[in-house]
């Protein structure tokens, strides 16, 4: 193996992130126009108006946070029901050339919750268990709609912060429709064609029989992959068409598609801070949020890259040279693998181009940490932004206590109700992870599900509940989560981890919308300064790391010392 060049790789990553940043500024402004109704006079305006007419609503018919939350839950409930039924009866439905049967009930339940919550945790292997119809009408639909739900909630939360003395924060149907029509569909369609041009397949063919080298014939799995791949990355969903996800050559055939997919993963989460800057009329605030996210992203990349660069001394002793390649693809290289792993776990995507289970211990801890931070580093489409706002509330609260002022953000006083809601957003996933990891360890199910022995097995278990509670969906995939204990507790964890924070943020937005704006004074803590950016980084890292320090010590950190000790 050619030894990677850290300077060259670092420069490439910086160049790539510059491209992402420029695109995010432009796309963020575009999003601001979309949600202000600026595109409704465009070519798709007629479709938009037709949809509103059919469901009996108008863009200016806005509702309070309770109604908004109710509509959101109702809509997702219907989506869940439809997907569940498709999964159960796919054996009787068309577009099933390989004749796969319906899913067992507890698997179907877990998968339906997983896709509706934007988690895309997968207890099945795509090419052996899902029909083409399930992939298209089941998974692709929820890839669009769960992402659109998250973005809609984020936009409603932005309205709550920027408006004053009103009880209205928007119309869920309108936000959702605009997200699908003007954001997700056009970008996904173009992205799908770009991917197809590079070799990502898109067909309804039966699996193809080939000679398969010298060891006997093989079947090659086929399917409508490009359409799924594009939206799975753009919507930060992450559920692979194939079991190997974006490591599979038909999902991610080359080093260029790899970068393109990482770009799609980051696009919407990186744009939303700038959208917020536009909608609030304070671009500097948007830039400050983006700066925090970018700084944490770079730190994470450096950490993961360095750990893999250091390598695995145990393997090196067997006469092997180069970076550890177990679970990695040659075409992506270390830089392309590390960048993907960081992007997919900083956001709530969860798609993978390498098996995280086989990363060296500290490298594997980076994705775990990024998810544990609540996915506030860019985060999921929409969900990342509102989680970040919860961190802002906590940060101005702590800063307020330290300097003895009433905490406020953008002229809105943060009082008991706001702080409570923000803490709920941050604590609920945390509690789910700690509680269910502990329960699983106390009963045989936990240890039985682990593939790898020692501290690594514990890391697998922590990663599983972390990924589900924060709606990421990536896994230390050796872990066997297909037993009823994990499918059922997992479904519960994913649902609570998604909808409780979303509703709490809507409540927080509702409370903020009702408030007056207080003019800034010399005592106001400015939130668009380098000092506050640094403060935010500290708060996010301290809250995240302190909460999970004991667990991380027993898992990845213990394994690291075991590895360098050569036990």
């Amino acid at each position, binding site marked *: *193996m050619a030894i990677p060049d850290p300077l060259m790789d670092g420069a490439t990553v910086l160049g790539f992130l510059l491209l992402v940043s420029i695109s995010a500024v432009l796309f963020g402004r575009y999003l601001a126009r979309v949600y202000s109704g600026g595109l409704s006079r465009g070519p798709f305006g007629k479709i938009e108006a037709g949809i509103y007419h059919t469901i009996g609503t108008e863009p200016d018919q806005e509702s309070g946070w309770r109604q908004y939350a109710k509509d959101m839950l109702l*809509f997702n409930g219907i989506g869940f029901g439809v997907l569940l039924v498709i999964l159960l009866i796919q054996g009787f439905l068309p577009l099933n050339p390989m004749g796969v049967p319906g899913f067992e009930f507890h698997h179907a339940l877990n998968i339906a919750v997983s896709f509706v919550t934007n988690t895309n945790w997968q207890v099945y292997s795509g090419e052996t268990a899902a029909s083409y119809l399930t992939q298209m009408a089941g998974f692709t639909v929820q890839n669009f709609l769960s992402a659109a739900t998250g973005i809609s909630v984020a936009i409603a939360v932005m309205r709550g912060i920027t408006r004053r003395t009103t009880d209205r924060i928007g119309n869920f149907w309108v936000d959702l429709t605009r997200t699908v029509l003007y954001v997700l569909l056009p970008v996904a369609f173009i992205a799908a064609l770009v991917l197809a041009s590079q070799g990502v397949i898109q067909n309804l063919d039966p699996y193809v029989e080939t*000679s398969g080298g010298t060891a006997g014939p093989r079947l090659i799995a086929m399917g409508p992959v490009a359409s799924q791949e594009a939206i799975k990355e753009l919507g930060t969903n992450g559920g692979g068409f194939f079991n190997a996800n974006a490591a599979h050559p038909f999902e991610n055939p080359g080093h260029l598609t790899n970068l393109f997919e990482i770009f799609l993963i980051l696009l919407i989460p990186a744009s939303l801070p700038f959208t917020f800057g536009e909608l609030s009329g304070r671009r500097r605030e948007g830039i400050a949020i983006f700066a925090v996210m970018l700084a944490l992203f770079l730190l994470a990349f450096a950490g993961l890259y360095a750990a893999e660069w250091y390598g695995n001394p145990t393997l090196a002793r067997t006469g092997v040279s180069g970076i550890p390649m177990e679970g990695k693809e040659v075409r992506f290289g270390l830089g392309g693998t590390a960048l993907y792993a960081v992007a997919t776990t900083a956001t709530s995507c969860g798609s993978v181009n390498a098996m995280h289970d086989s990363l060296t211990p500290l490298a594997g801890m980076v994705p775990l940490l990024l998810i544990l931070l609540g996915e506030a580093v860019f985060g999921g489409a929409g969900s990342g932004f509102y989680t970040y706002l919860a961190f802002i509330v906590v940060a101005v609260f702590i800063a307020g206590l330290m300097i003895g002022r009433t905490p406020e953000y953008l002229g809105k006083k943060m009082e008991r109700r706001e702080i409570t809601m923000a803490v709920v957003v941050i604590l609920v996933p945390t509690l789910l992870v700690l509680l269910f990891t502990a329960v699983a360890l106390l009963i045989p199910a936990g240890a039985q599900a682990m593939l790898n022995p020692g501290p690594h097995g514990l890391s697998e278990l922590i990663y599983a509940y972390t990924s589900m509670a924060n709606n990421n969906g990536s896994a230390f995939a050796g872990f066997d989560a297909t037993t009823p204990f994990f499918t059922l507790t997992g479904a519960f964890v994913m649902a609570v981890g998604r909808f409780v924070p979303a509703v709490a943020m809507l409540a927080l937005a509702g409370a903020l919308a009702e408030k007056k704006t207080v003019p800034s004074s010399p005592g106001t803590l400015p939130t668009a300064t380098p000092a506050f950016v640094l403060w935010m980084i500290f708060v996010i890292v301290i809250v995240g790391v302190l909460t999970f320090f004991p667990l991380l010590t027993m898992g990845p950190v213990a394994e690291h010392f075991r590895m360098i000790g050569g036990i």
Partner: protein
Amino acid sequence: MTSLRSAAILFTLLFALTGLAYPVAVLLAAGTAFPFQAHGSLVLAAGDRVAGSQLIGENWTLPRYFQGRPSATSGAPYNSAGSGGSNLGPTNPALVRVVEFRVQALRDLGIEGPIPSDLVTASGSGLDPHLSLEAALLQVPVVSDARGIPEDQLRERVLALAVYPAIPFSGPYVNVAALNRELDRWHGGDGYGSS
């Protein structure tokens, strides 16, 4: 209109748009503009047989051929209808054992010196079509012996097929199946390749 009715109708409309219209539109557009890629970049063999795909790795076990990376797909290696990695953790003794075993197998073929790690570790997909150029060149003496081709000629063929990626994340690599098919075309094959 009640929320429930609005939700149900909106879901139906968006379901039709994203679950039917969108994938079908991509199917038509990709099938028209990129028919070769859309159907799997398949490599045809003599008759109506499909030899493989340009993008999917295959299992080459005879010494006449360059071998690719180990594969941990379900059932059998390079099962292209059951992708996946080993998921063995970095300190798992099973990983160390299997890597030692593979290194020994290469030593038995007469390969000396440090072994590039991609040659003895399973990829994430289990279908990695590539091998680092270094790992391919290491096998030149073995294949040259088995085929009776001079080493320098064989080395030239390998170098001619090497890909130097535009993004500098990875060093040069070769597509193993393409290399083996090229060998068969050039030097006569056993019918495993595409000739």
